């Protein structure tokens, strides 16, 4: 354990790697020269520049996903020292060493730390997480949104589909088709939009479909891990209420349930 002595000079990183979607994962350790203000991504870039592992053997560069580098795109999410979070916002100085990097294994692994989050984007399509305004003619201005509501809705709109809440959810796994917390909260966001509310029922119907809100088991891990502090469990409870009302309307109501 020379790491303690040379803590300021080298960082030890243990990466859980995988060559392709179907091969077995393995661990590889790296020593990276320390620089000030490093984050996990700059450490990974250092390994890419000089792909030599702790045993001094040349290896393949680590493969990972990244994009905005300011914690708004969600692409660089991975499990860092046991916590799923964005690697761009994970500062080396604030991490305990050795730093363990793992992919978010609830998603299909593409290679090393890169995962395929397409199921989240499919879910957003399924629940119609948008405001439909396209048409053949100008629809004119929509209803106004109160400023207070806009500020509240802005918090929900911070979701970057990073996948951290799905990774932490015990009911999102390969045995279940649960869509997870993120898209449920997006239904709440778009249903509270004055124009989006015109298609409220369609989104609620989607939430009541296979793998929808019914599969939530209230472990409430999602709200604990969300990097944006989105009140996911409040959204889920609110959508529980809304889908229940919708299902009563569907069954007992008249034929004007749009």
């Amino acid at each position, binding site marked *: 354990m020379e790491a303690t002595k040379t803590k300021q000079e080298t960082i030890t990183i243990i990466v859980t790697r995988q060559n392709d979607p179907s091969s077995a994962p393995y661990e590889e350790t790296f020593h990276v020269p320390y620089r000030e203000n490093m984050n996990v991504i700059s450490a990974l870039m250092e390994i890419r520049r000089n792909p030599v592992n702790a045993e001094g053997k040349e290896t393949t560069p680590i493969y990972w996903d990244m994009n905005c580098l300011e914690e708004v795109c969600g692409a660089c999410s991975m499990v860092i020292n046991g916590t799923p979070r964005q690697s761009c916002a994970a500062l080396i100085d604030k991490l305990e060493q050795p730093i363990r990097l793992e992919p978010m294994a609830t998603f299909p692994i593409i290679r090393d730390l890169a995962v395929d989050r397409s199921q989240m984007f499919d879910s957003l399509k399924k629940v119609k997480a948008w405001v439909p305004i396209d048409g053949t003619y100008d629809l004119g201005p929509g209803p106004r949104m109160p400023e207070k509501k806009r500020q509240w809705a802005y918090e929900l709109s911070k979701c970057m589909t990073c996948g951290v809440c799905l990774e932490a959810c*015990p*009911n999102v796994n390969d045995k*279940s088709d649960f869509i997870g917390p993120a898209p449920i909260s997006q239904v709440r966001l778009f249903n509270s939009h004055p124009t989006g509310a015109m298609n409220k029922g369609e989104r609620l119907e989607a939430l009541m479909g296979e793998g*929808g809100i*019914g*599969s939530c088991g209230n472990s409430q*891990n999602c709200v604990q891990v969300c990097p944006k502090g989105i009140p996911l469990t*409040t959204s889920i*409870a609110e959508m529980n209420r809304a889908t229940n009302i919708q299902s009563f309307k569907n069954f007992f109501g008249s034929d004007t349930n749009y």
Partner: protein
Amino acid sequence: MNENREFFYRRLHSLLGVLPIGIFLIQHLVINHFAAYGSGSFNTAAGFMHNLPFRFVLEWIVIYIPILYHAILGVYIVLTGKNNTRRYGYFRNLMFLLQRITGIVTLIFIAWHVYQTRVITIFTQETIDFDFMEAILTQPFFFWFYLIGVISTTFHFANGLWSFLVTWGITVSPRSQRIATYATLLVFLGVTYLGVRSLLAFGMGV
């Protein structure tokens, strides 16, 4: 409703856990608690329940069918989850795990309990009264088996009541959910007291 079958099944599962199963559990333990007042009191109370009109229909509609449904879907729910309390040791996640563990323990307990007090007794023609329960619960193994079974059941009920309130959109705000945690803790303590007190009356004669 056809397209939303899963949603309906899950909501029905949540509803049945409280209504009628939860209500029945409280009623059952209140009747049992008469054992604390002596064998005569218990036999009168249990006899009244036993002689209710349409008992057979009541038992199947209010007890057996709902519990069977709740148990079968419950086992499916347990099997489709992947517990991760080691990585995420938050309070609610621990409750999530405990709800699943107590669900399975309760299922085993209830299956045995129904077999011992309802199924074999059809053949042995025994009357289920204070002496019958005393004979079971004075055996140390069964006393502990029943103790664990009863506490597991009351926990599953009280914690399930918390989830019920969320699932039905009654407690939405974090504050109301937090208060519901304390309220259901009181429910747990109260209902557990009823159950354990009657076990002590049967098993220890106190």
